[in-house]
């Protein structure tokens, strides 16, 4: 019995083999996606009660909070970055951390700028940035400005003054001496002293500003406190007349700043200086009416806040 080979079939197979091989190769190559060779950390904005998680329209001075969660992916997270892009400026605030995961709360007080573009991301130990979360805050131009509280005159004494206390509580509008301040730590927002050490002269700071321990002394000295409120400051170009004639908070909002970008001390104060302040409860301005002396000197300020 003679068996004839199906030559035509085998030839067909050979003919098909090469195209199949080529096609397979093409499929193989095209299926190879360039894998992400960077493991980056993750960030999410949380939509929880009391927090916003999307674009919003806010009235001037309206306060909102945003809550984020972050997590590492191969390396600890080392930075939470928040950036504000407005019409005329960019503000960058980076907070150093070292954690595998965590949450971060950002408090924003809407400024007078029509549109605020906020960006948030985290960075890890390998220098990889997460995706960026973007939030836009629009100004509600129909909203009314808010009321302000004015403290007409507050006189504080420097560290060795025997006529006036060095500590001030904004909410209570009260000047405290060292002992009183120690007993009312949660009330204290401002501290006045004369700085001989760094030539900052007449200075207003706050308990959390790391004031040199040699400035004050005694058992009520700041290192012995358990509550250290922090107030931050930015010098403004507000004219004295504009400050004195303000009736609502537009002047405060116009001179607002991102809390973490403010300075911990207002230094070399002279009469006529106007500083914006923020203690994460109240934002406002103070005007220096009078300042004199050194370690036993005094300062008189007028404050408005919202």
């Amino acid at each position: 019995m003679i068996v004839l080979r199906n030559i035509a079939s085998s030839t067909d197979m050979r003919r098909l083999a090469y195209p199949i091989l080529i096609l397979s190769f093409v499929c193989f190559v095209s299926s190879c996606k360039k894998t992400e060779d960077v493991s980056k950390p993750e960030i999410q904005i949380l939509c929880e009660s009391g927090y916003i998680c999307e674009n919003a329209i806010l009235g001037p001075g309206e306060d909102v909070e945003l809550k984020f969660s972050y997590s590492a992916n191969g390396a600890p997270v080392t930075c939470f970055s928040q950036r504000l892009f407005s019409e005329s400026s960019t503000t960058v605030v980076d907070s150093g951390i070292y954690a595998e995961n965590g949450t971060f709360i950002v408090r924003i007080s809407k400024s007078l700028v029509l549109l605020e573009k906020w960006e948030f991301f985290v960075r890890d130990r390998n220098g990889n940035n997460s995706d960026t979360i973007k939030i836009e805050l629009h100004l509600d131009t129909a909203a009314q400005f808010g009321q302000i509280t004015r403290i007409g005159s507050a006189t504080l004494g420097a560290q060795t003054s025997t006529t006036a206390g060095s500590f001030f509580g904004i909410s209570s509008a009260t000047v405290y001496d060292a002992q009183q301040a120690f007993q009312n730590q949660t009330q204290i927002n401002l501290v006045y002293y004369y700085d001989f050490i760094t030539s900052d002269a007449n200075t207003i700071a706050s308990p959390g500003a790391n004031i040199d321990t040699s400035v004050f002394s005694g058992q009520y000295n700041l290192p012995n406190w358990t509550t250290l409120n922090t107030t931050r400051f930015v010098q403004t170009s507000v004219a004295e007349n504009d400050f004195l004639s303000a009736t609502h908070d537009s002047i405060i909002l116009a001179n607002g700043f991102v809390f973490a970008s403010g300075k911990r001390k207002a230094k070399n104060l002279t009469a006529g200086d106007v500083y914006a302040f923020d203690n994460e409860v109240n934002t406002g301005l103070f005007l220096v009416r009078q300042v004199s002396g050194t370690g036993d000197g005094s300062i008189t300020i007028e404050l408005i806040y919202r």
Partner: protein
Amino acid sequence: MNRNITHRILWGLLFVLLLIVARSASSQTVSIPVFVSDSITHKKIANAHIRIDKTRIASISDENGIALFNIPPIFPLGLICSHVGYDTKVIRLSGYSVDTLHIELSPANISIPEILVTATRTERTNISLPNRTEVITSEQIESMPATNADDLLRLVPGIYITRSWGIFSRNASINMRGLNSSADILILLDGAPMNKTAGGSVNWHMINSADIERIEVVKGPVSALYGGNAMAGVVNMITKKPVNILGGYAEMSVGQYGTYDAGFSLGKSHVRNNKGFWWNLKGRFRTGNGYILQPDYLKTMNDTTLFIREYSGGIAVGYQFSPKSKISIITSGYSDIRGQGTKIYDPDGNPEENFTLHTIARYDYSFKKISVSANAFLHNEKYLKISESLNSFNEYRLYDTETDNGDLGGSVIATYLTGKTNKLSLGAEYRTGSEYGTDIYFTSTDELEYQGNLSVISFFAQDETALLKGKLNLVTGLRYDAGWFTNGSLLLNNPSIVNYIDENVLGDLPESSWNRITPRIGVRVPLKKTISVYANYGHGFMPPKIDDMVRSGKIRKGNKEANPNLQPEILEHTEIGAEYTHRKISISLSGYYSTGRNFQYLIGTGDTILSGSGELKEILKKENIALLEVKGVELGMKALVAKPIIITASMGLNYSEIKEFDTPEGYTTDLTGKFLNETPVIRAGAGIQYQHRRFSLFLTWEYTGEQWADEENLTTIDPIMLFNGKISVPVRDRWKLSLDINNLLDKPFIDKKGYLSPGRFIYATIRYTFPG
């Protein structure tokens, strides 16, 4: 920790293997008694040192003046017999032809003229040089207390070494003759420069004292011969070369603070009848857990012990083509990781890592009256530092610094003997250095990137003449250097409030160039057989460092701004000196006066920036603005008190004052009338060396006077007095036990940064040296 144990086991096994090799290499020897006596009194001499030339086979005579010597069959050989207070004698042996060998030694001067190569780049005796020179011999290197190579320089008059943390220090700072920068001294290893163009500093950790044959120190500017960095002087370390039988050493050490050390060297010369090759291998590993830098009253939870892990190795090969022609290539590698004593979050705390590769190639050729030497070198260093900090507000900062520095260069020098007593040398050199670095922040988005190149081309000439029938030795020299700075750039990506850099220094940095002509003239006159005097005048210069020209960023004082227009510092120097040598004592005295121009200072620009913590920080910049005056006196003495006891003493006095401070407009600093910081007025040292039959002892004392800690002369560093010691005990033929004790009296001191020194540090070593 497991890695550490594994390393120790591996090194221990290697040590044992080397011992086995060594033992088999030393099996075929014949024992011959050698009797040593005084040629005049004929009395027996105990503790005489007998060594076979070009090997490490050695023995010491006992109280009867007899040493039983194991001589291998490598005839003809030279037997070298020496003892303190006697001329060294060399006996040639052609075979095992004697039952007892009798060697008579003649009493000699304590100071034997040494042949030096560094002061003139030609061979000259130290007594003919118009410079103050010092030689640290192999015998001193072997017996001195030293846990680091730079410790060997501690008794040299005029040298001040800062190494506050001992072996745990990041590096050593070596100052000479009233100048306060390590970059002012040129450090050579086998003739090739170790100073980096990027920062001027030298990595002393990669130099192992056990591998050094000798150290030559030339004081005063030698820039007319060596160019940049040789402003205060030159230190040339010459490494050991193998001999004609397989030999080397293996050693292990243990020290305080969990310190372990193991090293070896193995080599052989196959050169026969001035032809053949030689090779040498070496390696070393050292680890230590360290101690806490902060004094007890300042310790915080973030303070942790320093630690070190070092690895080094090298290979050297050479070939002798003929008696007049030879080539050699030496490559050394070094890697370390060192903790900095703090740890906040990062697993290793704030470590610094370093990887360095250093290669030298050299070719020597001589023909009739001409000798030519060509050198090439390549030095590359990769550096990584992790910086963590918590400021006073508990704000966390983390950034990494990575730099890649490279130096490449070569030189050719031809020396012509124009007469019996005259040599003319002509030379050319080229050197290029580069730096590329980044500061990457992880607690903000700042990324700083900087780079630059500095190249120098040079030509020099030197004439050495002996006039008046050798009664006047004259050396004159002239050198021209031209340097140019290129490829400079400074970029700051994604800046935040953490970093502030004036936009005028961002981007491509302007190119700059400079040139220098440095003269030199010196004369030495032997007044009598025992007294000679010398005088010299010369210039020196230190080129600007790439780091200062391209890098802006945070430093302790504030924010430093790059200055690509920096020019070299210049020193004009005049010196006179005298030397007295007699049989049992030698005394050297030098006085010098120098004026420095264009000295660089970091000064406040008048601007400030607000740091991330809300503090105002000064912006600083290095500028060439000071006129400096340096006056000094040095005294050195060496005395043979009794036959086995040698005393050395040194003292240096110098005053370094800023005479003019040319403050640029807008800048705020003026340091006129201030004294250089970190430059003690008084520096003294002494050493007692005692050679007993069964052991050798070396005790040293160092005194560093009060010095200014800062440029404004507001704070001082208290005087420091230290006693160190080393005792070595030879055991059998080739074993040696030694004990190094730094700071014998355990007096820790606080350094200029407020950190604690380690106090007493004990280091025990066992070493096996085998033939070769």
